């Protein structure tokens, strides 16, 4: 895209993070020509940063003026999830259609949701940031989906205030399988203290003494509980076992995305790849479930998560 011919000085630029200084600032990276079809937002930015100009000439603007930009796409839908439940696959399937802008765990959204600030500011910043991230890049976009980090389910209240009419999906899975995967390779939310424990209604003192199985189970429970508490007419709850078919049968419709036969075939082809590492084929063995679960893990799941999972299944 030729910046000199474009109407906006931000065409070709993407916000990549927020700096919480005395005057918060948004950092932008030149990403023109790149499509956001990597498994994660950070990977696309890292691709951009391999270009000398993008690495050396990043720009900053005040966060408080972000909402003065011309608006980007309205979100078609949000994907929330418990982690390790094929949420990345769902995002990759949707992203396989070039006219769908799909952002998978965009860093600046995490920065906004993690801000300690009045709720009115968080809502305003969130709307502005998602709009800025959703600026048209191709010109023929007809869908904009954000797959969020697992712990962002704990911020559903803020997200629903910012986007009350945007449909959302909550993906969940048998909790023992989720936690076996997490204990094998932990996401940030499963590392005690990596995310403010108050997000999960826990406190620093108690998590320091808590067995790891209990900590992980209580984090997972908090995520499930948040989804159930905010369930509304815009919500679609899907169990892991319904994927990937439910993407075609339910998610596309819920998000108002119409795909022709060729696009559906492209999406179906994406299911045969490892969603987190698309150069590899998907293998069921790598996605194995609960064979490794310890007694302590099963006990923690039964105590903290099982009733919530049963409630999710009944939705």
């Amino acid at each position, binding site marked *: 895209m030729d910046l000199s011919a474009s109407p906006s000085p931000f065409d070709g630029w993407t916000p990549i993070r927020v700096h919480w200084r005395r005057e918060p600032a948004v950092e932008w990276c030149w990403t023109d020509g790149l499509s956001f079809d990597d498994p994660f937002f950070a990977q696309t930015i890292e691709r951009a940063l391999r*270009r000398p100009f993008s690495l050396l*000439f990043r720009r900053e603007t005040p966060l408080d003026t972000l909402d003065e930009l011309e608006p980007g796409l309205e979100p078609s839908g949000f994907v929330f999830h418990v982690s390790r439940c094929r949420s990345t696959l769902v995002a990759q399937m949707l992203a396989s259609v070039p006219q769908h802008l799909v952002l998978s765990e965009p860093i600046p959204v995490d920065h906004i949701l993690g801000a300690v600030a009045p709720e009115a500011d968080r809502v305003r910043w969130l709307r502005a940031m998602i709009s800025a991230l959703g600026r048209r890049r191709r010109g023929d976009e007809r869908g904009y989906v954000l797959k969020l980090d697992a712990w962002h389910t704990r911020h559903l209240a803020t997200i629903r205030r910012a986007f009350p009419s945007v449909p959302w999906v909550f993906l969940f899975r048998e909790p023992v399988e989720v936690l076996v995967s997490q204990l094998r390779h932990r996401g940030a939310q499963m590392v005690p203290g990596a995310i403010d424990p108050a997000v999960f209604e826990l406190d620093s003192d108690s998590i320091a003494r808590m067995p790891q199985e209990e900590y992980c189970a209580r984090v997972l429970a908090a995520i499930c509980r948040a989804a159930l508490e905010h369930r509304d007419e815009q919500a679609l709850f899907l169990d892991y076992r319904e994927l990937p078919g439910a993407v075609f049968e339910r998610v596309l419709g819920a998000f108002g995305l119409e795909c022709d036969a060729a696009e559906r075939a492209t999406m179906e082809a994406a299911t045969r790849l490892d969603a987190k590492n698309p150069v590899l084929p998907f293998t069921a063995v790598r996605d194995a479930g609960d064979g490794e679960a310890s007694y302590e893990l099963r006990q923690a799941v039964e105590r903290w998560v099982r009733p919530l999972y049963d409630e999710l299944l009944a939705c």
Partner: protein
Amino acid sequence: MNPEHASTSTVESFEAFRRLVLAEPALQARLRSIREWPPFVDAVVDTAAQYGITLTEADVLAARDASRRSWLERWI
């Protein structure tokens, strides 16, 4: 000259050049078209000189390394 002051002066020079580039779409377009580091570094040094800003190859590479570190350390 104290190397520490020289380093600070170098950082300030690069920042001055960065601000200049970000204010000039034509300069941005010129630098964006160079995808390999050696000719890019040369272009930065030459372009800076045209605007009265003295930068060496080492200065540009130091700015590159600092920028990479800034991204990699974003979780800290």
